């Protein structure tokens, strides 16, 4: 099963909609709640990053016959200059606006890494590509 969602830059109003839909789909499929908890948190964090840090992009949700969930986040820039630094808990370049919406604690990437079974991130100024799997 595969579903693709488009995420727009700075669209705070709809931020989280893709994660909500993915969560709902997985609930209808009665996936293990413990795994779903990790998926929900990681997916939401990554979706918000697309809204507040990137120029926008897509989220691809895939589920295979064994129940393994794969989430891919692909945006069109501006990229992360120093991934290691970005991964540090507490590090954030979030704008004042994003902080006003309650985002930008700098814990997102670290959180995602802890939630996911596999975590891979590639970035250049043309875009950031993040893949996570859950089982």
């Amino acid at each position: 099963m595969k579903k693709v969602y488009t995420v727009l830059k700075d669209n705070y109003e709809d931020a989280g909609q893709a994660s909500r839909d993915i969560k709902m789909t997985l609930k209808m499929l009665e996936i293990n709640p413990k795994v779903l908890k990790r998926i929900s948190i990681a997916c939401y964090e990554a979706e918000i990053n697309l809204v507040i840090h990137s120029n926008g992009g897509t989220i691809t949700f895939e589920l295979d016959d064994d129940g393994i969930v794969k989430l891919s986040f692909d945006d069109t820039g501006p990229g992360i200059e120093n991934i290691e630094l970005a991964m540090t808990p507490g590090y954030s370049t979030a704008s004042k606006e994003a902080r006003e919406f309650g985002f930008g604690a700098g814990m997102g990437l670290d959180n995602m890494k802890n939630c996911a079974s596999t975590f891979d991130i590639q970035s250049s100024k043309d875009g950031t590509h993040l893949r996570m799997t859950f089982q």
Partner: protein
Amino acid sequence: MKPVVSWLEKKCYNCIKCLKSCPTDAISIVNHEVNIDESQCIHCDVCMKECPSRVLKVQGAHISETLHEHEYNVVLIPTSLLSDLKSFEEFQEICQAILKLGFDEVEQYSDIEGFLYKKAIEESQQKEGIWLTSFCPTINELIEKKYPTLFDRLLPYDYPVEIAAKKIRERLKGKDVGIYSLCECVGKMTLAKEPFGNKTSHIDYALSISHVFPKINKLKNQEKASIQMNKYGVKSNVEDLFGNRSLSVIRVEGLNQSKSLLDLIEFDRIQHVDLVAMYACYQGCIGGYYLWSNPFEGCYNIESLIDECVGEIACLDEDDYFINRQMNRQEMKSMKERMVWFDKVNEILETLPQYDCGACGFANCRSLAQGIVNGKVDIQSCRVKKR
């Protein structure tokens, strides 16, 4: 467990108000018959309130038929009952009248509620993460059925009324005791053995307050029961009074608000809160369906009575209140089979108008599509498509 909300077909005119209002899409109407799916129902009372012909009801025990079944009978009264009364004396008179229905003892459990209320606040501050109180059976069912990822965040405390019943059994060991729970809401009714077949409970019979109210009213006079209430227990029943703004405790009432909050907690978006007290009813337990007055005034009544609630708080051991809740999950098919089912549902859904009108007897087009895939109905049920 046996079905809790039952439908008396006589005066039902298939208006579909019940199925449109159900928060969990548990209701469907097939061949003019209203069905409630017990595996989805959270016993919230919404459909009962919405039904214009009042044909959705919960059957309780009938004391005239059951009192003789045991040598000695004890009735547990809900704390929220206080909210219907103007003075503490009147409350004691009501309790005496309840006793006169034929019981040997009338017992309260606000002392246990008080203990658990304090325990919940204390424990949630000590332990990491956000905790959810576990006192509203309807909220617990909502979490189990719709937010299973948060099931392990429910505080592992048994229901106060259940603990009270267990304590009575211990105290009256060797006696043939029948324990009745007088209930202010549908959720609490579901805990008892009779008439719902909830085997593991210490409560034998469920009675709704409104069912016995006319009889109590007749028996009421100046005589008072010597019953005392604990003020923390009373507080824990009222949404407005739970917690304190200086603590990281929040109170949420109503199913819609609770759902929004649970959604946020699932995304880990609630960061500065240790404890959430959720109630399905407006203003908490004092908004229970079977209380005869209203929670608007009830809140005022309770506040003015609280100083007279001078009963002591209970002192419980972990053995008394701890419960290891298990999620009630059915035998599951493989993920592959579930995906095949889900794809079929979506395929059918694509062909439906997706107005979610409910005229077919299902809460929305997705529920109809599921009903079709599960072989309950065929696609001809859709009234809009037919035209």
